[in-house]
Each structure stands twice: as C-alpha cells, then as structure tokens.
C-alpha cells in the first residue's frame, strides 16, 4: 500500500435497520450504500456530491465510525477524523456555552495537555478564523443565528488541527460572502497544515472551487469518480451530465 494514502474505502456497503413500519411489511435491513470504493492521498480535497438521499452523509458517518453495520474495508492512516455535521443545531449540546463547546476537543486530547491559557488562546484564534465576535463565547447555541451555529461547528472541528476533516454541507446556511470566507479558511488549512478534507456539498459550483477529486453519488452508488477538472470537462456518466446542466455549468 502506498505511503501517502490517508484513506481508502474498498467495496463499502452500509445497512440500516428497517423497523417494522406497517403491520405486514417484512423486517429486513435496508441497504444505503452499494460497493463504494475510493482512495484519498494526504493533503487532498475530495468532494462528494449527488442528490438528496443518495448516501453522502451515510458514507461520512461510516468513515468516522458512527454507522457500524457495513461490509467492505476502510483503511485510515490517522485516527480521529473530525466531522462537521449537516445539522448544526442537533450536534451542539444545548446546555453548554459556546466557549465550553470549543474547548471540549482540547479537554479530551490525550496526545497533549492544554493549559487553560493555551486553550483560551486557541479558542480566540479559531474565533477569528470563523469571523465570530468573542462575546459569542458566553452564549448558548440557542442564542445564535443559524449561520453562526454552522461556523461554531466548523470551529470545534478545527480546534485540534485534525489530519482529516469531514465536512457535511458546511456552508449551506451561509450567504456567498461568508461562504467564500469559510472556503478560504478551509483552503488555508489545507495549504498551511496539509490536512485532507472530505467536502460534502450539493452545490456543484462550490465543489468545483474547492476539490481535487469528486465522487458523484446516486441511490447509494458511485456514478462517477475522478479528478474534478476532468469530470467537469468531460463527464462520463449521464447523471453527472444532468447535474452539471441543472447547475448551469454545462
């Protein structure tokens, strides 16, 4: 296996329980991903795109270890990938203040002991990067706007400078001006710290701007996978062509 592969999924199939819905329906598993394979090099940005319900979040949750019912293989060079979840509100503990939430990843850091002063300094750095005023540290998640919460989630994931970041629709609630800013932030991290990023988005314009490779999904299957430039210039799958056309790109 080559040294610089940081993540590889081979023939990944993922299942969910199918609880009994109606009286006579069969109680079998449902399959959400079918035979998904791809690999990522260190420092690469891989985008996952595709229609709603196609399995993008399922794939992300399987890589970080939340979905456990799968077959196939996942190889990861680094432990603890960080994930930014799609629904900011439900991923933030409503009983804790923003300052506390940002420091949480540092408290559980076993590789390094953070003093209170160091932790505070790190929090302030991150707040500056996600362009939020420090006054917000003293608030609860419910006291923020939707876009502010989304940025806090990104901040939490970045606190420990992860090697692999998985961001599920991280900019969907943000207007283009802040979107551009966050994308720049991600891009900077990527360049400065060489982190690898999986970037899930339904916006093909954003995908083009940020990614090196792209994985196009539909109904739990990979429709197309390749270098972003190549896929946008010469899409092979009919579905990719449709998507690009609908987005006004081709």
């Amino acid at each position, binding site marked *: 296996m080559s040294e610089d592969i940081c993540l590889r999924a081979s023939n990944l199939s993922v299942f969910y329980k199918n609880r009994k819905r109606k009286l006579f329906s069969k109680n079998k598993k449902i399959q959400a991903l079918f035979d998904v394979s791809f690999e990522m090099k260190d420092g690469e940005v891989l985008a996952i795109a595709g229609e*709603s319900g196609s399995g993008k*979040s399922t794939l992300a949750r399987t890589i970080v270890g939340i979905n456990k019912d799968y077959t196939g293989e996942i190889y990861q060079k680094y432990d603890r990938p960080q994930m930014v979840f799609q629904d900011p*509100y439900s991923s933030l503990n409503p009983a804790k203040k923003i300052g506390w939430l940002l420091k949480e990843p540092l408290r559980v850091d076993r590789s390094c002991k953070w003093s209170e002063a160091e932790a505070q300094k790190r929090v302030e750095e991150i707040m500056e990067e996600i362009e939020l005023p420090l006054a917000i540290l003293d608030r609860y998640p419910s006291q923020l706007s939707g876009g502010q919460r989304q940025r806090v989630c990104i901040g939490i994931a970045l606190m420990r400078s992860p090697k692999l970041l998985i961001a599920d629709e991280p900019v969907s*609630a943000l*207007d*283009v001006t802040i979107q551009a800013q966050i994308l720049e932030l991600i*891009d900077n991290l990527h360049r400065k710290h060489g982190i690898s990023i999986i970037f899930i988005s339904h916006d093909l314009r954003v995908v083009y*701007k940020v990614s090196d490779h792209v994985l196009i999904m539909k109904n739990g299957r990979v429709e197309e996978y390749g270098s972003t430039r190549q896929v946008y210039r010469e899409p092979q799958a009919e579905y990719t062509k449709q998507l690009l056309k609908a*987005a006004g790109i081709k």
Partner: protein
Amino acid sequence: MEIILDVTDLHIEFHDHDQPEVAVEDFDLMLGEGEIVGIVGESGSGKSMSALAIAGLLNRKSLTKSGRIMFDGTDLLTCDRKKLRSYQGDEISIIFQEPMTSLNPVKRIGWQVEESLYIHHREISKEDRRKRAVEMLGSVGLADAENVYYMYPHELSGGMRQRVMIAAAMIGNPKILIADEPTTALDVTVQAQIVELLKKINRERNTSIIFISHDLSLVSQLCQRVIVMQHGNIVESGRCSDIFSRPRHLYTKRLIAAIPRIDLGDDKDRR
C-alpha cells in the same frame, strides 16, 4: 392589492447578558395579499428573529419586543396566547431554518405533517388527513411518500427532512407562509421544484410568502420585492429587479459580486 400583514417599528432586544443586545431595530414590512417578499442579509442580521416574531414564536422571558405586527385586525405582538395559537400553523405558518429544531424525534413523519390539520381542522377524517399528507409529501419531491409517511426523522437524510418540514407548513393552506432558508440542504433540481411549488400555491391559493434566503438567484426568481438587512436594520428595500441591477448598499453589492461563477476553460478560478 390588499395588505394582509403590516409590521411597523419592530424592535427585538435580548437581556440574557450583561449588556442588552439588539437583534432587530426599526423593522417595517408591508405584505400584500398574494405577494412574495424576499429577505436577504448577512448571517446574524436578524432575519430569523423577525420571522419568528411574525409567526408569534418569540416568547422568551429574556427578551423585549416592541412595535406592531398587524394581521387580521389583531396585533400579534400583544394579543393573547389563545388567539395567537388559533393563527399559528393555520393562517400563518413557518418553515424553520433548521429541520431538527422543529421535527419531533419520537413521532413518525405522517404525524408531523398532519399535526396542523389535527389541531385546526378536526372535521377532516383520519383517512383524509393521511391522504393529504401523502400527497403533500409527494409534491415536495419525496419519491417514496407512502413509505416516508411511516418513518422517523432520524431515518431521513438532511434534504428529506427539510422537505418534510415544507410539506408540514403548507398542508393547512396558510394565508401567510414564512420560509426561512427552506432549500439550503437541497440540490438545484429539488430546489427548482420547491420554488415551483411555492409559486404554485401563491398563484392558486393566493398565499402570501415571506422568503428568507441567502441565495440571490432564488430570491430573484421568486420574489417581487426584497428587503436587505444588516446588523438588525433594513438597509435597502424595493423591487427585486431594481435592487439587483442597481444595488446601493455596500453589502448588497458584495453579495452580488460574490456569486460564484464558473468558467471551465479557465483555471484561475480554482486553487
């Protein structure tokens, strides 16, 4: 055009910190019957707070509100709870920005979509309710509506949940529909479908719509008028076409300039 909603001098201030924090200041909005008005503005500028106030959903102790929100001869800001509740979900309905804040995790999708019919229209039979709910789920583009009806929120993808919420908000035939970033989790194809659906209920049922979005191209497709907010204030408002062709305010200009454009022949766009 008859005025259906008249908001004047809306002011919202939070008191749960040392210093009071103004979230909305001098907000005015006149909404005509059958009109679609857009609200755009930076993150944190007060769009959702204004929307929640209009929907009668800002009742926290730690906040003060002033101004007037006139609907149907009643001031929604001061009227009693009972009256307010008779409007909520029936005459005035809201699609929330974050689906999981409004969906009940332990109830099936069918229940969530039918809830407002159950509360306000007890005359509708159980079977009819179910039929309407399934039909509504279909019209927001959920392919397997019969099945989705029996599922729980956590079994759906982000975009599917968002569409469930849209279905739930529309089922009761509201006079005013407030849509707070209703399509953020949706791809362009489904987005276009939702925009068509909004246009359709606006045309067929004369529903007035307040459409909050950070996506200027959606706003210009759907709305006649638009309001631009910044730091809790309205900084610009007027006809969509005027504002987008001749933006006066700096933020509006920045918004328009930041719309991503893609030129496949040219790679300087990319990193």
